Protein backbone atom coordinates (compact mmCIF):
# COMPACT_ATOMS: atom_id res chain seq x y z
CA UNK A 1 0.00 0.00 0.00
CA UNK A 2 1.65 3.16 -1.25
CA UNK A 3 0.87 6.84 -1.28
CA UNK A 4 2.28 8.92 -4.09
CA UNK A 5 2.02 12.60 -4.81
CA UNK A 6 2.92 13.38 -8.42
CA UNK A 7 3.46 16.97 -9.53
CA UNK A 8 2.45 16.62 -13.17
CA UNK A 9 -0.49 15.11 -14.99
CA UNK A 10 1.91 12.85 -16.85
CA UNK A 11 3.43 11.48 -13.64
CA UNK A 12 -0.02 10.85 -12.28
CA UNK A 13 -1.03 9.03 -15.45
CA UNK A 14 2.13 6.94 -15.26
CA UNK A 15 1.45 6.07 -11.63
CA UNK A 16 -2.07 5.01 -12.52
CA UNK A 17 -0.84 2.96 -15.46
CA UNK A 18 1.86 1.15 -13.51
CA UNK A 19 -0.44 -0.46 -10.93
CA UNK A 20 -3.86 -1.89 -11.72
CA UNK A 21 -4.95 -1.30 -8.10
CA UNK A 22 -4.02 2.37 -8.17
CA UNK A 23 -6.59 5.02 -7.49
CA UNK A 24 -6.50 8.81 -7.74
CA UNK A 25 -7.89 10.98 -5.02
CA UNK A 26 -8.21 14.65 -4.19
CA UNK A 27 -9.87 15.16 -0.83
CA UNK A 28 -10.34 11.47 0.08
CA UNK A 29 -13.69 12.34 1.64
CA UNK A 30 -15.26 9.41 -0.19
CA UNK A 31 -12.13 7.26 -0.52
CA UNK A 32 -11.42 6.95 3.21
CA UNK A 33 -14.93 5.87 4.22
CA UNK A 34 -14.97 3.40 1.32
CA UNK A 35 -11.61 1.97 2.32
CA UNK A 36 -12.68 1.76 5.92
CA UNK A 37 -15.85 -0.13 5.12
CA UNK A 38 -13.94 -2.49 2.84
CA UNK A 39 -15.78 -1.41 -0.32
CA UNK A 40 -12.47 -0.52 -1.97
CA UNK A 41 -8.92 -1.64 -1.23
CA UNK A 42 -6.57 0.37 -3.44
CA UNK A 43 -2.93 -0.66 -3.62
CA UNK A 44 -1.65 2.75 -4.57
CA UNK A 45 -3.20 6.10 -3.78
CA UNK A 46 -2.33 8.86 -6.21
CA UNK A 47 -2.78 12.25 -4.57
CA UNK A 48 -3.71 14.79 -7.25
CA UNK A 49 -3.31 17.85 -5.06
CA UNK A 50 0.38 18.17 -5.84
CA UNK A 51 -0.39 19.00 -9.47
CA UNK A 52 -0.75 22.73 -10.00
CA UNK A 53 -3.18 22.41 -12.89
CA UNK A 54 -5.55 20.40 -10.74
CA UNK A 55 -5.55 22.90 -7.89
CA UNK A 56 -5.89 26.17 -9.79
CA UNK A 57 -8.82 28.15 -11.08
CA UNK A 58 -8.57 30.35 -14.17
CA UNK A 59 -10.94 32.42 -16.20
CA UNK A 60 -10.88 34.08 -19.60
CA UNK A 61 -13.53 35.69 -21.79
CA UNK A 62 -14.96 32.34 -22.76
CA UNK A 63 -14.80 30.04 -19.80
CA UNK A 64 -13.84 29.17 -16.29
CA UNK A 65 -11.39 26.31 -15.85
CA UNK A 66 -11.55 24.76 -12.40
CA UNK A 67 -8.89 22.26 -11.42
CA UNK A 68 -10.53 18.96 -10.60
CA UNK A 69 -8.94 18.87 -7.15
CA UNK A 70 -9.65 22.48 -6.15
CA UNK A 71 -11.23 22.40 -2.71
CA UNK A 72 -14.85 23.45 -3.02
CA UNK A 73 -14.30 25.96 -0.21
CA UNK A 74 -11.65 27.74 -2.33
CA UNK A 75 -14.07 27.85 -5.26
CA UNK A 76 -17.12 29.06 -3.37
CA UNK A 77 -15.15 31.78 -1.56
CA UNK A 78 -13.93 33.19 -4.90
CA UNK A 79 -16.02 36.36 -5.15
CA UNK A 80 -16.01 36.53 -8.94
CA UNK A 81 -16.97 32.94 -9.46
CA UNK A 82 -19.65 32.95 -6.80
CA UNK A 83 -21.16 36.13 -8.21
CA UNK A 84 -21.38 34.53 -11.65
CA UNK A 85 -22.47 31.05 -10.56
CA UNK A 86 -24.30 31.34 -7.25
CA UNK A 87 -26.25 28.17 -7.96
CA UNK A 88 -23.20 26.09 -8.68
CA UNK A 89 -21.63 27.49 -5.53
CA UNK A 90 -24.73 26.60 -3.52
CA UNK A 91 -24.45 23.07 -4.79
CA UNK A 92 -20.72 22.76 -4.20
CA UNK A 93 -21.22 24.33 -0.78
CA UNK A 94 -23.63 21.58 0.21
CA UNK A 95 -21.05 18.81 -0.05
CA UNK A 96 -20.63 18.16 3.66
CA UNK A 97 -19.32 20.37 6.41
CA UNK A 98 -16.68 23.10 6.39
CA UNK A 99 -14.22 20.32 7.23
CA UNK A 100 -15.29 18.44 4.10
CA UNK A 101 -15.43 21.59 1.98
CA UNK A 102 -11.74 22.14 2.58
CA UNK A 103 -11.07 18.76 0.96
CA UNK A 104 -13.94 17.98 -1.42
CA UNK A 105 -13.72 18.97 -5.07
CA UNK A 106 -15.88 19.14 -8.16
CA UNK A 107 -13.74 16.44 -9.76
CA UNK A 108 -14.09 14.14 -6.78
CA UNK A 109 -17.80 14.73 -6.42
CA UNK A 110 -18.24 13.94 -10.12
CA UNK A 111 -16.04 10.85 -10.28
CA UNK A 112 -17.42 9.29 -7.09
CA UNK A 113 -20.46 8.90 -9.35
CA UNK A 114 -23.11 9.05 -6.68
CA UNK A 115 -26.51 9.83 -8.23
CA UNK A 116 -27.02 12.14 -5.25
CA UNK A 117 -23.82 14.17 -5.73
CA UNK A 118 -24.87 17.77 -5.12
CA UNK A 119 -22.56 19.57 -7.51
CA UNK A 120 -23.37 17.42 -10.52
CA UNK A 121 -26.94 18.61 -11.28
CA UNK A 122 -25.67 22.18 -10.98
CA UNK A 123 -22.74 21.47 -13.30
CA UNK A 124 -25.07 19.76 -15.75
CA UNK A 125 -27.49 22.70 -15.63
CA UNK A 126 -24.56 24.93 -16.51
CA UNK A 127 -23.43 22.68 -19.39
CA UNK A 128 -20.11 22.02 -17.67
CA UNK A 129 -17.48 19.87 -19.38
CA UNK A 130 -14.84 17.61 -17.92
CA UNK A 131 -11.28 17.63 -19.22
CA UNK A 132 -10.08 14.05 -19.05
CA UNK A 133 -6.43 13.00 -19.18
CA UNK A 134 -5.21 9.49 -19.76
CA UNK A 135 -2.87 7.23 -21.66
CA UNK A 136 -4.37 8.38 -24.96
CA UNK A 137 -3.93 12.09 -24.20
CA UNK A 138 -6.75 14.47 -23.38
CA UNK A 139 -10.40 14.65 -24.26
CA UNK A 140 -13.24 16.92 -23.26
CA UNK A 141 -16.66 15.46 -22.48
CA UNK A 142 -19.89 16.72 -21.01
CA UNK A 143 -19.96 16.34 -17.26
CA UNK A 144 -23.28 14.55 -17.68
CA UNK A 145 -21.50 11.80 -19.58
CA UNK A 146 -18.95 10.95 -16.87
CA UNK A 147 -21.12 8.97 -14.42
CA UNK A 148 -22.74 5.90 -15.95
CA UNK A 149 -24.40 4.54 -12.83
CA UNK A 150 -23.97 4.49 -9.06
CA UNK A 151 -20.22 4.28 -8.48
CA UNK A 152 -19.28 3.77 -12.12
CA UNK A 153 -17.96 6.19 -14.73
CA UNK A 154 -17.16 6.32 -18.41
CA UNK A 155 -13.49 6.95 -17.62
CA UNK A 156 -11.21 4.43 -19.26
CA UNK A 157 -8.32 2.63 -17.62
CA UNK A 158 -5.73 5.14 -16.49
CA UNK A 159 -7.99 8.12 -17.16
CA UNK A 160 -8.82 10.82 -14.65
CA UNK A 161 -10.50 14.20 -14.69
CA UNK A 162 -8.11 17.13 -14.77
CA UNK A 163 -10.46 20.08 -14.81
CA UNK A 164 -14.04 21.22 -15.09
CA UNK A 165 -14.81 23.84 -17.72
CA UNK A 166 -17.84 26.09 -17.55
CA UNK A 167 -18.55 28.69 -20.22
CA UNK A 168 -19.02 32.22 -18.99
CA UNK A 169 -22.63 32.77 -18.15
CA UNK A 170 -24.65 34.61 -20.79
CA UNK A 171 -26.50 37.80 -19.93
CA UNK A 172 -29.96 37.61 -18.31
CA UNK A 173 -29.25 34.11 -17.19
CA UNK A 174 -29.75 32.68 -13.73
CA UNK A 175 -29.05 29.28 -12.24
CA UNK A 176 -29.88 27.59 -8.99
CA UNK A 177 -29.63 24.29 -7.14
CA UNK A 178 -31.96 23.02 -4.41
CA UNK A 179 -32.02 19.77 -2.58
CA UNK A 180 -34.05 17.99 0.06
CA UNK A 181 -32.30 16.50 3.05
CA UNK A 182 -33.71 15.57 6.44
CA UNK A 183 -30.97 17.56 8.15
CA UNK A 184 -29.99 21.08 7.19
CA UNK A 185 -26.35 20.04 6.70
CA UNK A 186 -24.19 16.92 6.70
CA UNK A 187 -26.59 14.94 4.60
CA UNK A 188 -27.13 13.24 1.28
CA UNK A 189 -29.78 14.61 -1.06
CA UNK A 190 -33.00 12.60 -1.20
CA UNK A 191 -33.70 14.67 -4.29
CA UNK A 192 -31.68 17.46 -5.88
CA UNK A 193 -32.66 19.81 -8.70
CA UNK A 194 -30.59 22.18 -10.79
CA UNK A 195 -32.00 24.75 -13.17
CA UNK A 196 -30.73 27.45 -15.48
CA UNK A 197 -32.85 29.86 -17.48
CA UNK A 198 -32.15 32.74 -19.84
CA UNK A 199 -34.80 35.41 -20.28
CA UNK A 200 -35.25 38.00 -22.96
CA UNK A 201 -36.19 41.61 -22.32
CA UNK A 202 -39.88 40.65 -22.18
CA UNK A 203 -39.27 38.02 -19.59
CA UNK A 204 -39.74 35.21 -22.06
CA UNK A 205 -37.53 32.21 -21.44
CA UNK A 206 -35.20 31.65 -24.36
CA UNK A 207 -33.11 28.83 -22.95
CA UNK A 208 -33.57 26.45 -20.04
CA UNK A 209 -31.91 23.45 -18.51
CA UNK A 210 -33.40 21.39 -15.72
CA UNK A 211 -31.47 18.57 -14.06
CA UNK A 212 -32.27 16.17 -11.26
CA UNK A 213 -30.15 14.24 -8.79
CA UNK A 214 -30.93 11.11 -6.77
CA UNK A 215 -33.96 10.13 -8.84
CA UNK A 216 -32.21 7.84 -11.33
CA UNK A 217 -28.95 5.86 -11.58
CA UNK A 218 -27.25 9.04 -12.78
CA UNK A 219 -28.02 12.71 -12.73
CA UNK A 220 -30.54 13.34 -15.50
CA UNK A 221 -31.61 16.30 -17.59
CA UNK A 222 -35.34 16.77 -18.11
CA UNK A 223 -35.88 17.74 -21.76
CA UNK A 224 -39.68 17.90 -21.43
CA UNK A 225 -39.37 20.35 -18.58
CA UNK A 226 -36.95 22.46 -20.56
CA UNK A 227 -39.30 22.43 -23.56
CA UNK A 228 -42.18 23.50 -21.36
CA UNK A 229 -40.22 26.48 -20.10
CA UNK A 230 -38.71 27.79 -23.30
CA UNK A 231 -41.02 30.28 -24.95
CA UNK A 232 -43.01 30.86 -21.77
CA UNK A 233 -42.80 33.67 -19.27
CA UNK A 234 -42.32 31.02 -16.62
CA UNK A 235 -45.97 31.44 -15.70
CA UNK A 236 -47.76 29.01 -13.43
CA UNK A 237 -48.81 26.82 -16.31
CA UNK A 238 -45.26 26.45 -17.59
CA UNK A 239 -43.97 25.80 -14.10
CA UNK A 240 -46.63 23.16 -13.49
CA UNK A 241 -45.68 21.48 -16.77
CA UNK A 242 -42.03 21.64 -15.74
CA UNK A 243 -42.85 20.01 -12.39
CA UNK A 244 -44.91 17.30 -14.03
CA UNK A 245 -42.16 16.58 -16.53
CA UNK A 246 -39.58 16.38 -13.76
CA UNK A 247 -41.68 13.90 -11.82
CA UNK A 248 -42.27 11.89 -14.98
CA UNK A 249 -38.53 11.73 -15.62
CA UNK A 250 -37.85 9.99 -12.32
CA UNK A 251 -36.90 6.35 -12.11
CA UNK A 252 -35.72 6.27 -8.52
CA UNK A 253 -35.26 3.50 -5.99
CA UNK A 254 -36.58 2.95 -2.50
CA UNK A 255 -33.73 3.16 -0.08
CA UNK A 256 -33.06 4.14 3.48
CA UNK A 257 -33.04 7.80 2.48
CA UNK A 258 -36.33 8.00 0.63
CA UNK A 259 -39.09 6.21 -1.22
CA UNK A 260 -39.92 6.08 -4.92
CA UNK A 261 -43.14 7.99 -4.27
CA UNK A 262 -41.44 10.69 -2.27
CA UNK A 263 -38.63 11.23 -4.73
CA UNK A 264 -41.00 11.34 -7.68
CA UNK A 265 -43.36 13.81 -6.08
CA UNK A 266 -40.72 16.09 -4.63
CA UNK A 267 -38.58 16.13 -7.80
CA UNK A 268 -41.37 18.11 -9.45
CA UNK A 269 -41.62 20.53 -6.53
CA UNK A 270 -37.88 21.10 -6.43
CA UNK A 271 -37.52 21.48 -10.19
CA UNK A 272 -40.22 24.15 -10.15
CA UNK A 273 -38.64 25.96 -7.22
CA UNK A 274 -35.18 25.78 -8.77
CA UNK A 275 -36.51 27.33 -11.96
CA UNK A 276 -38.20 30.10 -9.97
CA UNK A 277 -34.97 30.78 -8.07
CA UNK A 278 -32.95 30.76 -11.30
CA UNK A 279 -35.42 33.12 -12.96
CA UNK A 280 -35.16 35.57 -10.07
CA UNK A 281 -31.42 35.65 -10.57
CA UNK A 282 -31.83 36.01 -14.32
CA UNK A 283 -34.00 39.06 -13.73
CA UNK A 284 -31.25 40.43 -11.49
Amino acid sequence: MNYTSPTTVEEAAAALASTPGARVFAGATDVVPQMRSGRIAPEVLVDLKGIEELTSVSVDDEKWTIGAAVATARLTEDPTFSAEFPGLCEAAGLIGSDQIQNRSSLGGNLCNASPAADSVPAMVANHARAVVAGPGGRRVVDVADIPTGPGSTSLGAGEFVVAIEVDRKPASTGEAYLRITPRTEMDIAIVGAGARVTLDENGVCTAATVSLGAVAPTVVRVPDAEAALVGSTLDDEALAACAAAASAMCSPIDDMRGTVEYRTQVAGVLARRAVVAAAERARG
Partner: protein
Amino acid sequence: MSRRHVNCTINGDSADFLTEDFTTLLNALRDEVGLMGAKEGCGTGDCGACSVLMDGHVTCACLIFAPEAEGRTIVTVEGLADHTELHPLQQAFLENAALQCGICTPGFLVAAKALLDRNPDPTETEIRYALAGNLCRCTGYDKIIRAVQDAAEQLRANA
Protein backbone atom coordinates in the same frame (compact mmCIF):
# COMPACT_ATOMS: atom_id res chain seq x y z
CA MET B 1 8.32 -2.54 5.02
CA SER B 2 10.05 0.69 5.88
CA ARG B 3 7.90 3.50 7.10
CA ARG B 4 7.64 6.96 5.61
CA HIS B 5 9.25 9.93 7.33
CA VAL B 6 6.98 12.99 7.39
CA ASN B 7 8.18 16.49 8.27
CA CYS B 8 5.71 19.19 9.17
CA THR B 9 4.89 21.91 11.66
CA ILE B 10 2.59 20.97 14.51
CA ASN B 11 1.29 23.60 16.89
CA GLY B 12 4.12 25.93 16.00
CA ASP B 13 6.94 23.42 16.42
CA SER B 14 8.69 21.67 13.59
CA ALA B 15 7.88 18.02 13.97
CA ASP B 16 8.46 14.75 12.27
CA PHE B 17 7.08 11.27 12.56
CA LEU B 18 7.18 7.87 10.93
CA THR B 19 4.06 6.46 9.38
CA GLU B 20 2.62 3.81 7.13
CA ASP B 21 1.38 5.30 3.85
CA PHE B 22 -2.31 4.59 4.47
CA THR B 23 -2.35 5.66 8.10
CA THR B 24 -4.62 8.62 8.70
CA LEU B 25 -3.27 11.87 10.04
CA LEU B 26 -5.52 11.34 13.05
CA ASN B 27 -3.86 8.05 13.94
CA ALA B 28 -0.43 9.49 13.27
CA LEU B 29 -1.10 12.44 15.57
CA ARG B 30 -2.41 10.17 18.30
CA ASP B 31 -0.11 7.17 17.99
CA GLU B 32 3.14 8.63 16.68
CA VAL B 33 3.14 12.25 17.82
CA GLY B 34 1.29 11.57 21.08
CA LEU B 35 -1.25 14.35 20.70
CA MET B 36 -4.50 12.83 21.98
CA GLY B 37 -6.63 15.99 21.75
CA ALA B 38 -8.17 15.12 18.37
CA LYS B 39 -10.65 12.28 18.88
CA GLU B 40 -12.08 9.64 16.62
CA GLY B 41 -15.87 9.69 16.83
CA CYS B 42 -16.63 8.12 13.46
CA GLY B 43 -13.56 7.81 11.25
CA THR B 44 -15.58 8.89 8.22
CA GLY B 45 -15.67 12.69 8.44
CA ASP B 46 -19.20 12.81 9.81
CA CYS B 47 -18.66 14.02 13.39
CA GLY B 48 -15.80 16.52 13.41
CA ALA B 49 -14.29 15.30 16.69
CA CYS B 50 -10.91 15.00 14.93
CA SER B 51 -10.97 18.52 13.49
CA VAL B 52 -7.55 20.08 12.99
CA LEU B 53 -6.34 23.06 11.02
CA MET B 54 -4.15 22.23 8.04
CA ASP B 55 -2.54 25.33 6.58
CA GLY B 56 -5.24 27.30 8.38
CA HIS B 57 -8.19 25.35 6.98
CA VAL B 58 -10.32 23.15 9.22
CA THR B 59 -10.41 19.54 8.15
CA CYS B 60 -11.11 16.11 9.59
CA ALA B 61 -7.81 14.45 10.43
CA CYS B 62 -9.49 11.08 9.94
CA LEU B 63 -9.88 11.81 6.21
CA ILE B 64 -6.28 12.83 5.63
CA PHE B 65 -3.53 10.36 4.89
CA ALA B 66 -0.57 11.01 7.14
CA PRO B 67 1.91 11.48 4.23
CA GLU B 68 -0.21 14.41 3.04
CA ALA B 69 1.03 16.35 6.07
CA GLU B 70 4.51 16.64 4.55
CA GLY B 71 5.51 20.31 4.63
CA ARG B 72 2.16 21.39 6.05
CA THR B 73 1.26 23.35 9.13
CA ILE B 74 -1.03 21.52 11.52
CA VAL B 75 -2.82 23.00 14.51
CA THR B 76 -4.65 20.81 17.01
CA VAL B 77 -6.58 21.75 20.13
CA GLU B 78 -3.31 21.44 22.05
CA GLY B 79 -2.02 24.39 20.05
CA LEU B 80 -4.83 26.85 20.73
CA ALA B 81 -3.69 28.28 24.05
CA ASP B 82 -0.95 30.88 23.98
CA HIS B 83 1.49 29.47 26.54
CA THR B 84 -0.07 30.35 29.89
CA GLU B 85 -3.17 32.03 28.43
CA LEU B 86 -6.18 30.13 27.20
CA HIS B 87 -7.53 31.10 23.81
CA PRO B 88 -10.67 33.25 24.24
CA LEU B 89 -12.68 30.39 22.76
CA GLN B 90 -11.42 28.01 25.43
CA GLN B 91 -12.21 30.52 28.15
CA ALA B 92 -15.66 31.17 26.69
CA PHE B 93 -16.44 27.45 26.54
CA LEU B 94 -15.60 27.16 30.24
CA GLU B 95 -17.59 30.22 31.24
CA ASN B 96 -20.64 29.31 29.17
CA ALA B 97 -20.72 25.66 30.25
CA ALA B 98 -20.42 24.83 26.57
CA LEU B 99 -19.27 21.30 27.25
CA GLN B 100 -20.69 18.37 29.11
CA CYS B 101 -18.77 15.18 28.42
CA GLY B 102 -16.09 17.07 26.52
CA ILE B 103 -15.31 14.52 23.80
CA CYS B 104 -16.46 16.83 20.99
CA THR B 105 -14.95 19.95 22.58
CA PRO B 106 -11.52 19.82 20.89
CA GLY B 107 -13.15 19.58 17.47
CA PHE B 108 -15.58 22.40 18.20
CA LEU B 109 -12.80 24.67 19.42
CA VAL B 110 -10.70 24.06 16.32
CA ALA B 111 -13.67 24.54 13.96
CA ALA B 112 -14.78 27.66 15.80
CA LYS B 113 -11.27 29.11 15.57
CA ALA B 114 -11.32 28.51 11.82
CA LEU B 115 -14.65 30.32 11.63
CA LEU B 116 -13.57 33.33 13.67
CA ASP B 117 -10.27 33.59 11.81
CA ARG B 118 -12.17 34.21 8.58
CA ASN B 119 -15.32 35.83 9.97
CA PRO B 120 -14.78 37.76 13.19
CA ASP B 121 -18.44 38.74 13.55
CA PRO B 122 -20.60 35.81 12.51
CA THR B 123 -24.36 35.72 12.99
CA GLU B 124 -25.95 32.92 15.01
CA THR B 125 -26.98 31.23 11.76
CA GLU B 126 -23.47 31.49 10.34
CA ILE B 127 -22.06 29.93 13.50
CA ARG B 128 -24.58 27.11 13.37
CA TYR B 129 -23.79 26.29 9.76
CA ALA B 130 -20.05 26.65 10.23
CA LEU B 131 -20.19 24.17 13.13
CA ALA B 132 -22.64 21.77 11.47
CA GLY B 133 -19.76 19.38 10.82
CA ASN B 134 -19.19 18.97 14.53
CA LEU B 135 -21.62 16.70 16.34
CA CYS B 136 -22.40 17.25 19.99
CA ARG B 137 -24.83 14.86 21.64
CA CYS B 138 -24.83 16.44 25.12
CA THR B 139 -25.56 20.14 24.91
CA GLY B 140 -28.15 20.72 22.20
CA TYR B 141 -25.58 23.26 20.89
CA ASP B 142 -27.20 26.23 22.64
CA LYS B 143 -24.33 26.98 25.00
CA ILE B 144 -21.71 26.20 22.37
CA ILE B 145 -23.19 28.83 20.06
CA ARG B 146 -23.30 31.35 22.90
CA ALA B 147 -19.68 30.59 23.79
CA VAL B 148 -18.57 31.22 20.21
CA GLN B 149 -20.53 34.49 20.17
CA ASP B 150 -18.85 35.54 23.43
CA ALA B 151 -15.41 34.60 22.19
CA ALA B 152 -15.98 36.47 18.93
CA GLU B 153 -16.88 39.56 20.89
CA GLN B 154 -13.82 39.14 23.08
CA LEU B 155 -11.55 38.70 20.09
CA ARG B 156 -13.00 41.76 18.39
CA ALA B 157 -12.43 43.76 21.56
CA ASN B 158 -8.83 42.52 21.71
CA ALA B 159 -8.18 43.26 18.05
